[in-house]
């Protein structure tokens, strides 16, 4: 192999997008035709606060190279405070990942509003760029909970 896998590896990402803000933000990126890498597959959830740490671990066990949770900006949550909840809880996930030896950079949270199509595209672009050098995630893949 002549190519450096660190720059060509295509990470597989699961993006949990809240229905009210980030999913609408991704729609706006589409309407504005802002291009970004195709590595992230969106799964819409009611609120970032509904994303259980379990889902994130499941994604890694099934071989995801990166997991993104994106919700409304703090203070703008459609459900009042769901995203604060998400932030607190998911912060613990980051620590947990670190504890079990997975690069914490593989998990990311972002706050993208319905008006931020460009930001959504940027979040995905950056995440893909940061994951590439990490290569495939094999630490948790295939592990039982």
């Amino acid at each position: 192999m002549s190519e450096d896998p660190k720059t060509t590896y295509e990470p597989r990402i699961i993006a949990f997008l809240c229905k009210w803000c980030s999913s609408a933000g991704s729609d706006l990126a589409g309407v504005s035709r802002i291009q970004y890498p195709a590595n992230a597959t969106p799964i819409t959830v009611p609120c970032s606060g509904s994303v259980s740490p379990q889902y994130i671990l499941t994604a890694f066990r099934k071989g995801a190279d990166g997991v993104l949770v994106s919700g409304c900006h703090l203070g703008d949550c459609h459900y009042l405070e769901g995203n604060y909840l998400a932030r607190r809880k998911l912060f613990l996930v980051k620590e947990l990942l670190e504890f079990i030896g997975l690069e914490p950079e593989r998990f990311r949270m972002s706050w993208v509003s319905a008006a931020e199509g460009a930001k959504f595209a940027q979040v995905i672009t950056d995440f893909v760029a940061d994951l590439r050098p990490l290569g495939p995630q094999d630490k948790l893949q295939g592990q039982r909970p």
Partner: protein
Amino acid sequence: MSGKRIGVFVCHCGNNIAGTVDVAQVASVMAAEDGVVCTSDHAYMCSDPGQNAVIAAIKENALDGVVVSCCSPNLHERTFRENAKAAGLNAFDCEIANIREQCAWVHRDPGEATEKAIRISRVAVRRLGRNRALDAIAIGVTRRVLVVGAGIAGIQASLDLAAAGLEVVLVERQATIGGRMMGLSETFPTLDCSQCVLSPRMVEVARHPRITLMVSSEVEKVSGYVGNFQVRIRRQAAYVDPDLCKLCDDCAQVCPVVAPNEYELGLSARRAIFMPYPQAIPATYTLDAASCLGLNPVVCGKCRDVCEAGAIAYDRKPETVVEQVGAVVVATGFDLYGQQQLGEYGLGAIEDVLDGLQFERLCSASGPTKGKILRPSDHRAPKDVVFIQCVGSRDPARHCAWCSKICCMYTAKHAKLFKHQVPDGRAYVFYIDIRSGGKGYEEFVQGVMEEDEVMYLRGRVSRVYQDGDKVRVFGTDTLSGQNVEIAADLVVLALAMQPSAGTAAIAKTLKISRDKDGFLAEAHPKLRPVESVTAGVFLAGTAQGPKDIPETVAQASAAAAKAIGLLSQPQLSHAPTVAAVRSRLCTGCRMCVDTCPYDAIRLVNGKAVVTDVLCEGCGSCVTSCLRAAIQVKNSTPLQMKEMIEAVLRV
């Protein structure tokens, strides 16, 4: 996996999707997906033939559900769910895979885009596989409306609602209704007298059989949901019984207390028992407990002794009432921008520097000077008056970033009213630029400049200070490039309009959001300007943003119309995707109860129970439950797991 017979329909969207995604390839890969029994692709799924194809396929293939891979669910989820229903299925037997906004439009490489479209479609198939049939939850409607704030916005909204046959509870913080408009003298651009237009409306409110007016009251707590709110209102003790008060003024004559009159903005004094304005509604004297000597006959008791009508009692208590309403209109108005931050203009420190509302009182026939413009320090008629616009407005670095919109107009009005009274006086206006959009507004300002010979100086004022009996104003006229110094008798500041303190309070109580400047946030800046994001809560007047009276009234009528529309439905429906508890697993630990932002969960016999109509389906409770005993319908952990697998399957 789920045993359902599923059909997948892939849309070309003309070239919008098919230009990047290999639509036929998506359809053929999906045909091999577990549970999928038929697939097809179509140029425009949302067209009539496209929709008919979906309905026909459901019937022909005895499908249990369909996935439509097309544009964002925000556009056509409803369309295709209606199709599913038309073919005898449940709305949740249809799911949308968004392969346009989230795929075809944002990726160039056809191979990558097609792969991703397949993954997105698989996710939708797996979600559909575990969806349960759910029907919208019907909720009853209470045909009553709470209106908070009784300025012109709240008054207009209440009258419109009542005219439509709805019952209204109108809650006002102060002792009289009318709000800021009550304190204005004449109004631009027609110079009609503010109280002459407002007073009849106020009387109508007081007399209307369907309007319950509660002054000196505040909303303490709101619970419930659209169509069915419970509102707790606290009314301050009414020491003077409005039904008995004869407005004779005997009480005020004997009261020994002198306090600044807040309704006259400190320009005159009042007693502890007084009438806010001669036209106050309800028409009654009011006793201010804070300045009264103690509500104790041993200490004073003069007013009670002198009142022949027996209207006064010192032992009355605050009251709390609970009202049921179906909708809420918030009309809590504005305040002028915090004066303490504006030291450079001398406001509060120099007696003859006033704000715009105080100047209105000086011009008002019912004001402290009976409409004579006299300066506060020595009660002389001023000859040189300086008006300064944009004080606090349009100054993002230090004060408010926004334009308060009405100050150009009322400053022109003030200068005109002054010149009419003191024809040989000189009026100067410092301005940044003149914003006079509105019917007849530009002509009004032009008239003030030309016919009334008011001097307009373009520039900011740098300093204002007391010099003997004059107020010296330093500024620059940026048009001539000259420094200007004026020895004024009176200075009037057009302070920025900011959301009232009561607006911040009610936003918290109602849990509705405010914008970056603190005004109430509308659900959509263009298409839903009088709705908050909370269903059933509507916005009116200056609490939502700076505006003049005509705009305030228009918005109030619009808010009323929205509430009328809402409450004229026989039933409201609530999304059925609510949380449900598996009691067998629940240990009654209360984690979910404490997490739920909507107070939708209670413990009944030691087990969590969700009140469906309160639950918004946010899923916060799901992640709080250590026993996995609570789930949101059609967003279950099992569905999540299968969707994750669908993405990562190779």
